[in-house]
């Protein structure tokens, strides 16, 4: 009972943090260099989570998912960097990317502190919540605010990738008890 209550509290807390992130992003007006920075940061955050998973998890499904996250998000970063280089746009740190990084640091500490037994569920629950939040931010904030057509097109192409990741995470979530 106590364990269940603790888990529920953790999920509620995570939901509150992400909802807060999403609302925060929605009320912030971003320029293209700032949007590029948010896009790269959001991808890098998930690569960092995957790195922890590779170190801590023993679950084949979780490890495979983490490997996919690492590879896909690095691929997105590479293409985003190639595009901003071509456009001569320098990604600019901003309030949203700073908050993403700050929240990610807290989550990384939480995940790293988990026992091997509890890690898989904590990681995959976070992946589901994180991808939902990022999809919402890309869809409702970044894409509508982007001015450059090529940057907008890149973000639009990222969206189905994120949605497939979410579906994959939810599939793994059902396997991890």
């Amino acid at each position, binding site marked *: 009972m106590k364990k269940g209550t603790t888990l529920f509290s953790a999920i509620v807390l995570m939901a509150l943090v992400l909802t807060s992130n999403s609302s925060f992003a929605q009320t912030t007006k971003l320029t293209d260099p700032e949007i590029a920075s948010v896009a790269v940061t959001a991808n890098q955050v998930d690569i960092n989570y995957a790195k922890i998973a590779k170190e801590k998890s023993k679950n084949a499904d979780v490890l495979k998912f983490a490997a*996919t996250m690492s*590879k*896909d998000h690095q*691929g*997105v970063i590479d293409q985003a960097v190639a595009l901003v280089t071509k456009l001569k746009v320098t990604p600019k740190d901003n309030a949203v990317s700073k908050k993403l990084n700050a929240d990610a640091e807290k989550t990384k500490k939480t995940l790293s502190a988990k026992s091997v037994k509890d890690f898989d569920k904590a990681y995959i629950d976070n992946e589901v919540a994180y991808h939902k939040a990022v999809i919402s931010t890309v869809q409702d904030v970044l894409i509508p605010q982007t001015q450059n057509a090529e940057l907008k097109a890149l973000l639009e*192409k990222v969206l*189905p990738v994120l949605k*497939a990741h979410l579906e*994959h995470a939810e*599939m793994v979530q059902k396997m991890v008890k």
Partner: protein
Amino acid sequence: MIRLHKILRSNSYILLSIFFLTSCNTSSKKDAANTGVNKDTVSRISKIDSTLVSKKNESLVDTIIISDMNFHPAVIKIHKGDAVIWINKDMVTHCVTEAKTKSWSSLQIPAGEAWKMMAVEHSSDYYCAIHLVMKGKIVVEKEHSASKIRSGIPGNSKF
């Protein structure tokens, strides 16, 4: 409606460059084994080019576009002995693996590249082993008549 890409006649020169690299699931040697697919003809095409659409070929090439994390069409009907080519227009690497027994598996197909499997003999469900939610199906129908131009599959493709 006639699908132009399904009336391609393939001969060897349609492929820009063919080379074998690491498998999608690191066991490429079992490519297409026991499925009537000749592994020697399972090829990776390094670049996508309009020359894939050749008019000098004898067998048919059926094209599946990978985009927006889906196979288009998700279900493709081909004739026995046809080749199937997957063209990755997504921004991430994909692969294709037979679903039931993993009897064949592609190489990794990076963004902007393609992978071709020759002489498909049997129907099969397949999926992307990197993104498990991506699924497709090949339905092999009777052997095709070389002179016959086949129709597409209305409703299956989003393109």
